[in-house]
């Protein structure tokens, strides 16, 4: 357990460092009426909550029991006591744990998996500071907030999957919540599209961040090569790798445009993060994307 504890602590530390300086993420709740889950942030308007918001004169139609008699007794009018509407958003993260995320080339600063974990955890910290609930697709428990949840999150992110390419598992999500997908989206496209579509069907907003290694973008290979997927299930041999660079670039562009089209269709957002770049830019993108809503 020692290693896991250490790893969790390291992840947390890196993520905290990354999240530092970004104001607590306030995910804009979408479709407020439908989701009445109480949160800690006031919505600057009256509603159901715990904090006092304002008194207003009673008008016709107000229920008698709604009148605040203490306030009303001081004057001739009747007042209602309104509470500030407080709510919390829940964000569910999918961080791809497939073997393909373990790849890193010489130019990369990090494994893709490490980068995904870092970004995910930093996002979770920001959300958690803002009082949002954070959960994982891979974790059947519903999204929660707080320090304990962060620790749980960090721990479960250390798992990896044995399969080459990950797929977001089926999970019941609350309507109006947000799903964040951190993956290289290199798996079988049809299956990916299906899985993402099924998530979208639950009327959730979404962000997709494709994390790629610089080698996966530039294809800096040469000579006679045998390419293998990370656990060796796929094999491809070429006699002159350099000749394939353009074809590869086209295929990658296709995949990325497919991803963008999917996002557009679902009303989601999509972006690409390269592990050779610093992670902060992508974290900011996620922050903005969640704040604006999709």
């Amino acid at each position, binding site marked *: 357990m020692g290693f896991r504890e250490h790893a969790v602590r390291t992840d947390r530390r890196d993520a905290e460092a990354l999240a530092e300086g970004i104001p607590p993420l306030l995910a804009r709740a979408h479709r407020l009426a439908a989701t009445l889950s109480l949160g800690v942030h006031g919505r600057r308007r009256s509603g159901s909550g715990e904090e006092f918001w304002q008194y207003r004169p009673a008008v016709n139609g107000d229920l008698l029991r709604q009148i605040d008699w203490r306030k009303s007794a001081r004057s001739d009018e009747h007042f209602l006591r309104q509470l500030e509407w407080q709510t919390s958003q829940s964000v569910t993260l999918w961080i791809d744990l497939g*073997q*393909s*995320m373990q*790849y890193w080339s*010489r130019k990369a600063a990090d494994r893709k998996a490490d980068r995904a974990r870092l970004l995910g955890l930093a996002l979770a910290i920001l959300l958690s500071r803002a009082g949002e609930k954070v959960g994982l697709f891979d974790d059947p428990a519903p999204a929660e907030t707080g320090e304990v949840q962060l620790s749980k999150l960090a721990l479960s992110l250390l798992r990896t999957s044995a399969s*080459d*390419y990950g797929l977001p598992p089926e999970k019941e999500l609350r309507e109006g919540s947000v799903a964040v997908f951190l993956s*290289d989206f*290199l*798996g*079988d496209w049809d299956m990916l599209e299906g899985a993402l579509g099924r998530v979208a069907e639950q009327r959730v907003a979404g962000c997709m961040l494709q994390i790629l*290694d610089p*080698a*996966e973008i530039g*294809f800096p*290979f*040469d*000579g*006679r*090569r*045998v*390419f*293998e*997927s*990370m656990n060796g299930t*796929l*094999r*491809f*041999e*070429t*006699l*002159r*790798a350099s*000749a*394939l660079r353009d*074809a*590869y670039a086209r*295929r*990658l562009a296709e*995949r990325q445009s497919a991803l963008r089209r999917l996002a557009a269709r679902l009303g989601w957002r999509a972006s690409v993060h390269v592990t050779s770049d610093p992670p902060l830019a992508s974290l900011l993108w996620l922050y903005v994307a969640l704040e604006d809503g999709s």
Partner: protein
Amino acid sequence: MTTVAGIGFLEPWLLVALLALPILWWLLRAVPPSPLTLRFPAVVLLMGLRDADSTPERTPWWLLLLRLTALTLLIVGFAGPVINPEDRAADNKLHVVALDASWASAADWDRRQQRVAELLRQAETGGRPVALVRWTDPPPSEAALAFTAGVDALSRAAAMNPLAWRPRYAAWADALENAAHRFDTFWITDGLAHDEESRARLAAILASRGRLRVIGGSDSQTALRNPRIDDGRLAVTALRLPGGERERVAATASGPGPDGLNRILAREEAWFEDGSTETEVSFDLPTEIRNRVRQIRLLGRRSAGAVVVTDDAVRRRRVALFGGSLEQEGSPLLSPLHYLRQALGPTADIIETDLSDALQSDPDVVILADVGNLSADATEHVSAWVADGGLLVQFAGPRLASSDVGRFEEHQLLPVRLRAGGRSVGGAMSWGDPKRLRAFPPGSPFSGLPVPDDVVVNRQVMAQPDHRLAGRVLASLQDGTPLVTARDEGMGRIVLFHVSADVQWSNLPISGLFVDMLRRLAVSAGQRAATAQDLLGQYWTPVRVIDAFGIIRPEGSIAAVDGALISEGEPAPGIPPGVYASSDRAVALNVLHPSAGLEPAAWPADVRVLPLNGGTELDLKPWFIAAALLLLCADAAAVLVLTGRATRLIGPAAALAVATVLSTWGPGSAAAGDRERLAANNTVLAYVITKDQRQDAISAAGLLGLSTILHQRTSIEPVEPVAVDVEQDELAVYPLLYWPVTAGQASPGGEAARKLDRYLRTGGVILFDTLDSGDGGASERFRHLRRLTATLDIPPLEPAPADHVLTRSFYLLQDFPGRHAGSDVWVEAAPADAGKLEGVPFRNLNDGVSPVIIGGNDWASAWAIGRDGRFLFPVGSGAAGQRQRELAYRFGVNLVMYVLTGNYKSDQVHVPALLERLGQ
């Protein structure tokens, strides 16, 4: 061995493998470099793509060529290619390793032994019995070579030494003529012909028995012939092999000095002219010194040939002659001394003066010709001189015959008693014929001299027969009457010729025999070498012998040698070269026969002469294999490049290569800066380079010695001293400059002078050394120093006062000797108002250090040590010299202390005051 185009192959059958190269070509061509397997998650995007060029990739032709070349090199390399291959073929199982092992082999005997050891090991490896032979040994009596295992021969070879005579080719040729074996011979020659005819015969015999290989050749060989006296000089002829260039030879003559120890008495040089084979080294020495010369040695040659010993031939005796009667003017032939002068004149220094004066001049021989009676005083004088080792030769004559000397008792100066009057034979008034001489008896010093028939004696003095007479007769007439008698007296000897020294009594003085007899008596040592005449019939005992390496050692174990053998003039087994003695005479037997020259050995055309050190045979195997490995490395690199794996490796490899190259070449370019950095970080003694390289070497060695002493004795731990060029180098990092003043130095010009001034003003110290024990500033070197430093700002100087800090900065010193002692050392003058503190033996002198210290004691030479720690120059002599050197070092230690600590030691005078103040 197979030879292809001058290259031999040790394992030629391996070349068959070259036939496999075409197959390899085909195989290598078909198999391209293996692909590199790579993990790549985005492989999914590649699936289904096709290579544009579908032809299978083949090995590039240049890579193929590279590999095939490497393989060819490997195959050829392992086949053992050899340039100028040595002939390893063997005709016979038996091997003979024969060495000339003469004096000429001594110079490079180690190399010869190594070669012999190689040959013997080869024989051992090949399981061949081997016989090890020195041609200088006499052949074994039973004409059979002793073949042993190589190991046994090895141990014998290790203990084998060359012998100081020439090889016995003739004897060996006779011995081997009928040898039954067949064998291969390795003949390690010294390159000299020695005895061309016999050597050719021996070579032919050996060649007929099996394969003959000759190893070794004529290096430079130099040898000396017997020394001789030539025009009053001691001359020796040096010989060398033909074909040399102009070459210098130096020889020393040595012998007992006044203290009886062997000393070098003279050293001379001569030049071999271009192409000439002989030159003469001549020593012009006073007779006294010349008579002391025992050996002459060529410098730098380690062989018996380069050493000659001298004998009586080069000694010139001093003979004092006295005649009884006054010389009659105008009739010299009647003078009793005339024939003696004639006989001795060419070979001896003749003294004819007053007897007492003559004895003062320490003659070797005194000859009294018919003196008769001497005064009692003179008799005592001469007698004492004889007892002290002199040789007194008396000749009879009318005066002796008529005197009573020795008549009644044995006279002090006569060997025998004489009968009155003598006798006259063959005269008109006497019976009988003039008497002839009887052959000399064995044991007599004249033994072996032929007796001419025409020598007759008419008159003689007669010895009184008594029991002692027989033992004292050296020569007698045919009738048995003694002609020459002798008696030992003390350490000396008294000889009496019973005839007169002129021709009145006999014609002996005008015969050749007379001269020979005198020589045999060592009255006159011949200036020519001892002839057979001189040697025959005598037995000679070796006193000192020369070994083949030219080392002379006293000899006591060799039996006396017949003079007949020595008379051959050449050493042989049992007759080593050296000095042989018989009674009073000594004869030298030198390595080279007096008439011999040095001839290079000529070999038959069909005999290969191999160089001594294995020589021109060059084994190419390592080169081939190395080249193949290099090519294979290149191949590996090429494969890396082809498969795209190179980028990962080339960067670091190139960096490493560059780093290696830089680290190899770097120091040279950065040396100057490094030196100053070193000097700045350490204490370094520095000397100023002069134009005189020898002086620079002395300075370096001197400061090295001083640095070593400082390291040992003090907490100053200087590193290696450095040379400083005041014109160019930065001086500020050196606390002390040692500046020897030599004649050729130019005074430092503008920039250098400013630099030196700055150096001196900012605390640098220069020790000027005029090296010449400069007497009070008047010497030439001092004038030179004055000129040298004219451009510098030197403060007023004074001789270092007795209370100067230099005298006590580490050791307590009174003076500052170097290799010379006693000259003043000048330092900056003390200020006029320097007062003496109460109760303190020193004045409170100026603060700061004298910027210059000037002396002439040649300190560097006294300090100088070599890398091995030995002193390079003698200082003084004996214990006093050691003390002086020690004081020189102490001066050096004090000086460096003074330079580094300034007047700190002087400040110690304040200690009592400080302590007093602290006590308050």
